[in-house]
């Protein structure tokens, strides 16, 4: 069966698209699936760094699109996992080097031999974003529980809905349970009240993510990382599994359990 193409976008910069793309790709590959990650952030590439593959770049996305190399030559195989590949972005060009049609053609060429294509979108709503969502079967929106990130995510959802790419799904990244409890941070419910799309993942703030990023070793490969587990859960949900959301805001003890009994729904 042909691959599903998933584009990870957000509108706002710095909310965790690249981290999410790397970790979801790794988690899917760790589950035995054939995955290609594509960095569509031409001119500001960083998916290669986060995945620890920057030293092995010979060809990139623009080389493929402009016919200087074959598709397979630009795919860097990750040596840690059975079937994970990366097509890096070009660092010396900009978003106009590639068109939405190019992206669709590229994705179609990849589809037959893989299970998943995960595309890292650049920030913004211009050409780079349009390139990244052009081939998508599913769009994942990453946001932080923070007012300006939610505003930008809302904008992006409007654009994605207008493109008839099917309903996008939401990843809320960098949740700090203690701050939510104090009322200093938006809760999952607050975010969903505005964005009103299906939730596919809630990622807790986790120092391990920064450490992992610097080491080029995505947190999804670290068994003890809470963020890593949350990304692995997203991979499971993408594969159709019903995985309950961890109650990050759980209070311990009697009152916590009582509160959870009376509070409707929660994150699922």
């Amino acid at each position, binding site marked *: 069966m042909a691959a599903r193409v998933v584009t990870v976008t957000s509108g706002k910069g710095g909310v965790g698209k690249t981290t999410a793309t790397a970790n979801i790709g790794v988690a899917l590959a760790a589950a035995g699936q054939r995955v290609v990650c594509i960095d569509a952030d031409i001119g500001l590439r960083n998916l290669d760094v986060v995945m620890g593959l920057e030293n092995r770049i010979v060809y990139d996305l623009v080389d493929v699109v402009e016919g200087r190399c074959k598709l397979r030559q630009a795919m860097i195989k990750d040596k840690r996992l059975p079937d994970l590949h990366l097509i890096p972005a070009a660092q010396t060009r900009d978003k106009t080097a590639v068109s939405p049609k190019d992206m669709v053609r590229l994705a179609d060429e990849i589809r037959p031999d893989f299970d998943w294509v995960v595309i890292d979108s650049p920030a913004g709503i211009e050409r780079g974003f*349009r390139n990244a969502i*052009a081939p998508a079967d599913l769009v994942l929106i990453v946001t932080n529980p923070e007012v300006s990130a939610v*505003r930008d995510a809302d*904008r992006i959802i409007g654009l994605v*809905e*207008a493109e*008839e790419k099917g309903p996008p799904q939401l990843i809320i990244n960098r949740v700090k349970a203690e701050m939510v409890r104090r009322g200093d941070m938006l809760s999952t419910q607050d975010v969903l009240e505005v964005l009103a799309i299906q939730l596919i993942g809630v990622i807790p703030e986790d120092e391990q993510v920064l450490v992992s990023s610097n080491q080029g070793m995505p947190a999804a490969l670290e068994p003890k990382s809470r963020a890593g587990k949350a990304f692995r859960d997203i991979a499971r949900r993408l594969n159709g599994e019903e995985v309950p959301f961890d109650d990050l805001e759980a209070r311990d003890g009697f009152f916590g359990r009582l509160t959870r009994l009376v509070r409707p729904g929660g994150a699922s």
Partner: protein
Amino acid sequence: MAEPLPIKGVRDGLLITLPPGMWGDLRASLLATIDDRGDFFRGARLALQVEDRALGAADLGGLREDLARREATLYAVLSTSPLTLAAAANLGLQTNLQRPGVPSQPAEEEEEAVDEEVPAEAALLLQHTLRSGQVLRHPGHVIVLGDVNPGAEIIAGGNILVWGHLRGVVHAGAGGDESARVCALDLAPTQLRIAGRIAVSPKRRGNVRPEIAFLREGQLVAQPWDEERRHA
């Protein structure tokens, strides 16, 4: 070049109506027409009637860019396709030819400028949430079954009713009608304007209740929906 595209002068610019044919061909034909006639289109404001073609934000945005490169401005897209209308709203394009900010003119002056299908007082019903960055302009009343998120805008010649959370910017009576009203189940707009008056929401006190905002002696006031009944 294929047969020339019908171009008509309207009050705010030029209306180009696409004849039957493939979008790709007509798009190329439109750009070729503009390139051929150079000065005629420089600085022009263009409205495009695309009939029932379903065009997404990428199509319309790309066309707007191509026109801008030729120093023409796309300001409106007319269509019967809901996808096209939604995409146009997302890009801040008008979806009809009437400018809500202009007070209504006597009939004789409007014979070819006005879109005849939309009488000025007709209400537009939107059955989904208006998201950040989407702008809805309509000369009559506007009813939204859904929320108006922060960053979204409604500009209406008539009243605005939101059956949901109103958190964006609304301008009712945009043509100067001071009797216009804004109603919402949760009236919490970033900015509220009626005719020429503008106000921001005060901090909410107590529970969320449906409210109506209107002009009373030149002042913008908001009161609970059942206030008049209680004091009648």
